[in-house]
């Protein structure tokens, strides 16, 4: 018997494609966010509200992943930016190759911002790098405030947490301070936004932050060119 050292990442192939995507996004000046959450936390409506607030001359594209149906793509496309549905046909997450394949349909186009809505799942998507600049995790107040502790990977790997559906706080036993504390236990540097897509509360500061990130990313792309 002979033991051969391999020393490779299990997701080596995904990471290789993701690194290529990241390189391409940097060259083209595209800011890419990968949104992760449980099913039903309000990702699609959050993205609709986000798209509605963006300047119409900004080049924005959206990829939305689901196991079945193109319902989300149809909702998001109403805002007017190009949207593609990725149906994973059973897979519980998006991988880098799916992103690469979907982007081929937009070959020759350059985007300032690419928003990726991952499959609703707090576990599997955290393992797959999509070449994004950052992962953003959504947690709604109809879930438990201990979600960050139960699913630490998603909160550990995200740079931003959106605490969504805060208009429902009076009606649900959700301790928002505990949710913040739990997220910061997992990831002390996570940025937190608290939003309601029904009342619009908190969206202004999220939109301002997003605008700033787009501006900074553009400037970086110009400097490196």
């Amino acid at each position: 018997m002979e033991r051969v050292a391999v020393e490779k990442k299990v997701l080596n192939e995904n990471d290789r494609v993701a690194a290529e995507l990241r390189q391409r996004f940097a060259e083209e000046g595209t800011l890419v966010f990968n949104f992760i959450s449980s099913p039903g936390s309000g990702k699609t409506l959050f993205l609709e509200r986000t798209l509605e607030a963006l300047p119409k001359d900004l080049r924005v594209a959206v990829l939305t992943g689901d196991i079945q149906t193109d319902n989300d793509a149809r909702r998001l496309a109403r805002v007017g930016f190009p949207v593609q549905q990725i149906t994973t046909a059973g897979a519980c997450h998006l991988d880098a190759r799916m992103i690469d394949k979907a982007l081929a349909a937009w070959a020759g186009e350059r985007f300032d911002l690419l928003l990726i809505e991952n499959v609703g799942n707090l576990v599997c998507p955290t393992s797959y790098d999509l070449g994004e600049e950052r992962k953003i995790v959504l947690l709604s107040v109809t879930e438990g405030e201990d979600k960050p502790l139960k699913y630490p990977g998603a909160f550990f790997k995200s740079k931003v947490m959106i605490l969504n559906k805060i208009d429902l706080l009076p009606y649900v036993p959700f301790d928002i301070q505990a949710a913040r504390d739990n997220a910061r236990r997992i990831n002390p540097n996570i940025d937190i936004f608290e939003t309601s897509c029904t009342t619009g509360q908190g969206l202004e500061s999220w939109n301002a932050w997003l605008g700033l990130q787009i501006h900074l990313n553009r400037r970086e792309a110009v400097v490196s060119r």
Partner: protein
Amino acid sequence: MHEMGIASSVLSAVRIEAGRYPGSRPTRVGLRVGEWSGVDRESLQFCFDALVMDSDLSGLELSIDYRLRRNRCERCGVEFAVENYETHCPQCRSDHTVAIGGTELDIAFVELEE
């Protein structure tokens, strides 16, 4: 439930590795799986067994080296085990600590038989 995809990636890597040693048969593959890698060990073992059974890799066994989370303090440099999600430095209480272990999802080795 992405363990099936993970197991499938592991088997692809084993086939590539074994291909470098013609005439040999892979008998065991060793993984390092971090506490926070998002992979469930039992589920991975189940998927691995299901894929290996009656395949060209029949008889291949899986070893998992499970790694607990460790952080290093960026201020004082101390390395410590993260227990109960406590990421503050136990020595200087700084909250600027970074993960140095526990997120692994690596193939460490393959064992081959003539």
